[in-house]
């Protein structure tokens, strides 16, 4: 069933239109890193604008904006935070965490030769690539890229003659770009679910799969279910913009009465909340995996973690209302969503319990992936707990649309998932590219990123508690925000330092691609199947189809003799235990 392999595939078939899941993973990785770089630069510009709102931008200011003699005009700032959010969520994190890790890891960890539908897999990358091109093109369209926020709320995004004149074609390009990214996620989701369900090798029962594969499997389910809903909402906005229909147009602006902007907010956040769990689920799986590998100890409560992930997949689809507490939603509905949202902290606390219990009495090896994994546990604890503030109706009405919310989701998204990206890249780099990354440089990069990350995002929450609104380009004009300007400047310089620290990772990554030390087959001495495949794995992944005899985390098991790890498909030990 896997792709037919002609004897000597040429350059095009191996590198460009390859149907090999490992090559597609690398393509997703490089696309994701490219957009991570761009959206990261936008973040630096945003923070520097907030640090010095009325200062002239150094060097390029005069050239870019002669009419405001170097000062950043508001529409550029609006474009910055819109594209920072949209590119990060749909074109940086999704390709790396779900595209690259998912494509590379799922077939290898379940012992399959390739994905269920290789051609669909290749198409899913190229549809994401086209989406990326459309988003990049939207910068060069007259009036520039979209400026309605990554949430593109209804009446602002859906009416083209609204008085802020800058809503030119950029918003339409944005809608098309996101539609492409959504289709790509949908195609990828179908592929992942069928591969996990039908292509596991002999003996690989569902409850013997590593936690990373579980995370990616649940992500695929949420993707398949909820991406079409936001596609429907975005098509309605597109039709409102282009053909003048009135789904979300109300009040004086609507030519025909009947539309409701609140419907867009419900449709968007109906997808929005599962989307943020789509991005974090693979990282949860990765953390469970890494903590067990580098504590040389089986993952504590494997089944409890899997069932908690399943509970969160179900719960995440019924709590979208906590994004709408201030939006004119029925307050009774608000009470219901408060109680539904706080139940999510039960499965999350079980994650933390299992992570800490895995570390308990373990032989900790502080390798780079382990450092990042511990970093994730730290930042996600802050991120998860501050989520509680936003779940409370009365408190959320105060902190909604302030930097407190921005700080919260940057802790869960920009910190935890970013560390997940670094952990995944460091952990699978030897297997993906056959070379090792420089360990010392990675540890320095971890420490710097960890420090500056916390500087920026914690002060975001501090400033947000003081009522500092988000998405405003010039906070100094508000008297009640005047004394937060010193914090904004502090955040500006910490972001500069954070960006500088990423050069270390970029250098480490691209240098080791060609000049890293040759990697052995199992550098981290882990048990999962991808480490029993040769490095770098050939087209069919495994020389002979593996036969799994035990769970993925049999470290220090009595059967493994003097070595403290026992490969999943190691026939040596007779007793096929759990």
């Amino acid at each position, binding site marked *: 069933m896997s792709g037919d392999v002609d004897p000597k595939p040429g350059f095009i078939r191996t590198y460009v239109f390859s149907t090999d899941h490992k090559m597609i993973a690398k393509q997703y990785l490089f696309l994701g890193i490219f957009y991570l770089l761009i959206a990261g630069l936008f973040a630096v510009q945003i923070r520097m604008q907030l640090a010095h709102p009325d200062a002239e931008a150094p060097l390029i200011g005069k050239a870019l904006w002669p009419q405001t003699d170097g000062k950043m005009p508001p529409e550029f700032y609006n474009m910055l935070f819109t594209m920072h959010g949209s590119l990060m969520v749909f074109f940086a994190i999704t390709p790396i965490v779900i595209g690259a890790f998912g494509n590379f890891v799922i077939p290898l960890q379940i012992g399959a030769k390739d994905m269920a539908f290789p051609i669909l897999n290749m198409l899913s990358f190229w549809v994401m690539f086209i989406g990326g091109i459309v988003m990049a093109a939207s910068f060069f369209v007259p009036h520039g890229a979209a400026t309605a926020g990554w949430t593109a709320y209804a009446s602002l995004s859906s009416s083209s003659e609204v008085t802020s004149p800058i809503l030119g074609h950029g918003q339409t390009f944005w809608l098309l770009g996101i539609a492409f990214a959504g289709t790509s996620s949908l195609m990828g989701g179908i592929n992942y679910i*069928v591969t996990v369900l039908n292509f596991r090798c002999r003996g690989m029962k569902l409850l013997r799969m590593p936690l990373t594969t579980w995370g990616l499997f649940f992500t695929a389910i949420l993707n398949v279910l909820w991406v079409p809903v936001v596609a429907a909402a975005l098509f309605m906005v597109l039709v409102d913009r282009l053909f003048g229909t009135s789904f979300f147009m109300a009040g004086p602006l609507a030519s*025909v009465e009947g539309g409701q902007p609140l419907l867009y907010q419900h449709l968007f956040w109906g997808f929005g909340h599962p989307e943020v769990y789509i991005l974090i689920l693979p990282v949860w799986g990765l953390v469970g995996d890494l903590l067990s590998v580098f504590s040389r100890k089986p993952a504590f409560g494997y089944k409890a973690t899997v069932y908690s992930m399943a509970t969160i997949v179900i719960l995440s689809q019924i709590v979208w209302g906590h994004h709408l507490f201030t939006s004119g939603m029925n307050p009774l509905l608000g009470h219901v969503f408060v109680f539904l949202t706080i139940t999510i902290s039960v499965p999350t606390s079980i994650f933390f319990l299992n992570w800490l219990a895995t570390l308990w009495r373990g032989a900790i090896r502080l390798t780079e992936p382990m450092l990042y994994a511990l970093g994730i546990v730290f930042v996600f604890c802050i991120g998860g707990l501050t989520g509680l503030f936003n779940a409370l109706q009365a408190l959320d009405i105060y902190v909604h649309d302030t930097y407190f919310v921005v700080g919260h989701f940057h802790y869960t998204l920009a910190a935890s998932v970013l560390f997940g990206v670094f952990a995944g890249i460091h952990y699978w780099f030897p297997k993906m590219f056959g070379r090792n990354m420089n360990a010392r440089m990675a540890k320095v990069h971890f420490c710097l990123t960890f420090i500056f990350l916390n500087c920026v995002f914690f002060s975001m929450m501090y400033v947000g508690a003081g009522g500092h609104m988000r998405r405003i380009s010039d906070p100094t004009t508000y008297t009640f925000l005047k004394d937060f300007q010193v914090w904004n400047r502090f955040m500006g310089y910490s972001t500069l330092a954070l960006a500088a620290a990423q050069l270390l990772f970029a250098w480490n990554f691209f240098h080791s691609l060609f000049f890293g030390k040759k990697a052995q087959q199992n550098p981290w001495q882990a048990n999962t199947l991808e480490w029993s495949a040769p490095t770098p794995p050939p087209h069919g992944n495994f020389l002979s189809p593996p036969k799994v005899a035990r769970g993925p985390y049999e470290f220090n098991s009595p059967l493994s003799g003097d070595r403290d790890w026992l490969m999943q498909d190691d026939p040596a030990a007779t007793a096929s235990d759990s």
Partner: protein
Amino acid sequence: MEATSSIDPELEFTSTGVNSSKLGMWIFLASEVMFFTGLIGSYIVLRLGSDTWPDPSQHLATSVLAINTFVLICSSLSMVLGLQAISQGDQKKLTKYLLITILLGTTFLVIKVADYVHMIHNNFTITSSLFGSCYYFLTGFHGLHVAGGIVTLVVVLIMAKKGRFSKSHYDMVECTGLYWHFVDLVWIILFAILCLV
């Protein structure tokens, strides 16, 4: 998750026994269910929420739409007969039924486009009212899905002509059939909720 199947027992635990392409198509149909939940759901909710909703029979030619529904149900029938034919290995009958399905599908589209032109002619357009927006948007998207189905059916017809399908290997026909029946099912719901009530 255990499905009784004829796969060798060792793989018993590690595959659901359901044919992969059929499983993939059903997952795609689950996402289509969510897509049409988004669309038709919004229509239902908007309609119940707005107090001035025109009576559809004023604007729509219900008889033409009824014929259209009948055409689509016939195409579903011919698809099923084609599928039963190939499951007994009869390739010639499969190509015949596939041809009928494609012809019926195109007549459905032709009737729909003619209906659109007629209605726009007596100015019931997409911007004339929220009902107009919903009607054209929903039936338009459904029409796109039917067009996509016809393109796939043509591909399947070409493969059937080349004899690529046999008694034991006809996944592609089965999946296209599933998709076609789903599109027919959506039209059945749309016809009742959008056009008649």
